């Protein structure tokens, strides 16, 4: 089969009328194809990267030049970054974002592991219903249930104006993380669980000593996604922390930063760089876990 393919292909090359041997023609066609593909790829790369470049270049311009529409800085004002950092509140927002993302990730991972394990490992009545409910909450716009939740946090618990309404729910299972981790756990062969049981492990110690170490890539993926979710979240901080600027996160504060420095695009762009930077740094360090997670979402279990 393979040999016929190889021997017959050159004779099949059509498009008569062009000069040169068939082999040369094929090579020329390949070269043209290579050039076309890479030209498009370079154009696409410009579309994806130029916004970053413009944002960065503007972030080091002087106040006046940032308003001029010029593209290249006359002088590099690195002091813009210092100015952003010394803006009242900015360091608080950093701290709050780290706290929200850190605690949120920790809580989510701890609560998602047992739930995902139960949904992947046990066959029980209502399992399908539970999965359907998990996926439904995953799909639900957060605006649907926010009003009564807000009233509880504001009127009964008096905790609005802090990040607690954002992180506490994450200790009770995040649907997306549960779903993702369950998909991962399904790929672990049941035999490992069985042999652990033969060795006299209970369910809990099987989970902690056998499953968790094996599921490390999946756990890393949900941790990363949750960290990004918290870091990027705007709606949550807007609802629960708006009254108290000291409790704002970076994502929420950045917008008010722009309105406070309405004319200073350079400072706003420097702040934008500082909000983007951590996620991109984290990405480069954790690329593998990330790709793992993305394939998990896309590929069916």
């Amino acid at each position, binding site marked *: 089969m393979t040999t016929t393919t190889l021997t017959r292909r050159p004779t099949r090359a059509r498009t008569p009328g062009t000069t040169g041997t068939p082999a040369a023609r094929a090579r020329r066609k390949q070269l043209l194809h290579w050039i076309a593909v890479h030209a498009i790829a370079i154009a*696409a790369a410009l579309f994806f990267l130029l916004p970053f470049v413009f944002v960065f270049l503007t972030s080091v311009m002087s106040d006046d030049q940032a308003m001029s529409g010029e593209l290249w800085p006359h002088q590099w004002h690195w002091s813009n970054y210092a100015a952003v950092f010394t803006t009242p509140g900015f360091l608080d927002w950093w701290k709050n974002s780290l706290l929200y993302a850190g605690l949120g990730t920790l809580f989510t991972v701890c609560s998602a592991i*047992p739930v995902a394990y139960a949904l992947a490992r*046990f066959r029980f009545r209502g399992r399908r219903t539970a999965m359907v409910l998990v996926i439904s*909450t995953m799909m639900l716009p957060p605006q649907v249930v926010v*009003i009564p939740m807000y009233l509880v946090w504001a009127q009964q618990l008096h905790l609005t104006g802090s990040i607690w309404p954002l992180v506490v729910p994450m200790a009770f299972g995040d649907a997306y993380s549960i779903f993702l981790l369950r998909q991962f756990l399904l790929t672990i062969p049941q035999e490992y669980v069985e042999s652990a049981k033969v060795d006299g492990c209970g369910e809990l110690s099987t989970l902690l000593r056998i499953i968790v170490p094996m599921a490390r890539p999946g756990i890393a993926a949900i941790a990363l996604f949750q960290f990004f979710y918290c870091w990027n979240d705007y709606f949550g901080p807007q609802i629960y922390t708006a009254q108290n600027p000291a409790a704002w996160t*970076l994502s929420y504060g950045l917008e008010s930063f722009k309105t406070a420095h309405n004319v200073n695009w350079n400072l706003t762009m420097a702040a934008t760089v500082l909000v983007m930077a951590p996620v991109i740094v984290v990405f480069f360090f954790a690329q593998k876990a990330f790709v793992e997670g993305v394939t998990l979402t896309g590929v069916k279990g």
Partner: protein
Amino acid sequence: MAATASPAPELRRKQLRERLRILGFLSPWLVGFSVFFGYPLIATGYFSFMHYNQIEQPTFVGLRNWTYVLTQMPLFGPALWNTLWLVVVMVALRVVFGLGIGLLITKVKSGAGFFRTAFYLPYLAPPVAATVAFVFLLNPSTGPVNEILGALGIPAPEWFNDPTWAKPSLVLLSLWGIGDLMVIFMAALLDVPKEQYEAAELDGAGAWSKFRYVTWPAITPIVLFAVVTGVVQTMQYYTQALVAGKLASGVSIGPGSVIQPGYPDHSTLTVPQLVYSLGFQNFNTGAACALSLVLFVIAMAVTTLLMRKRAGLLPADD
């Protein structure tokens, strides 16, 4: 001993223990689901029949909130229209563009690693930061994009400041962050068996027929997945539209001040923003709850579609 005397209670006890154990593992989610989903959903239903401004006691008003939201509220129409517009246009363009970029990246031979990272990076930009960046880039008077278009002699639109261009600008922003779809499509495209392409070439198939008869059938499940999750995400579209509208309006806002979303001319107002505006700016809790239930019903309808086996979200073994 016990086993010979009464096997049934022993078995039942074992079953009970097993069930309690499962409940134990599930308990964080069971609590979370009831407290942070079940309760507020019921309470939303309750408030949708009440007049409540978050200060005085709620009073029963029957269907008034519902008739107000569905028939009288002037902004419901535009918000629903914008949401549908975004669901159709944004999802369609994102899928087509994501597939194109995915195809491109599988064809690139030199510098594949660089291109992959470059194409993926914008997806990582936090939505607020990406939106601030785009409002700056597309700023009509001093933004670099219009600066370049002007230099080339191309008439430049007002982007986020023009009601007809505001939504397309948001679409552009969403195409910039195509990285998630690119990775999914790339994985699907690399999964198509090479032999099928070779066989098609033998039959003299050109690039288009190879795509149409080999690639497309192999990746339709992933395309469907991308469409359905895209629809669900876009129905929640909130942050980028709200931030872009606020910043482009140029109105200075301090904490606590109220600026209605949707600038310019309600062209970027979506249903989730309207819920926020009703509930947290106008303190019309009843109408906000009625509207969020409308959103809930639409979201549930789409989710039900999603649960169908063909969309591939619910694993086959269930």
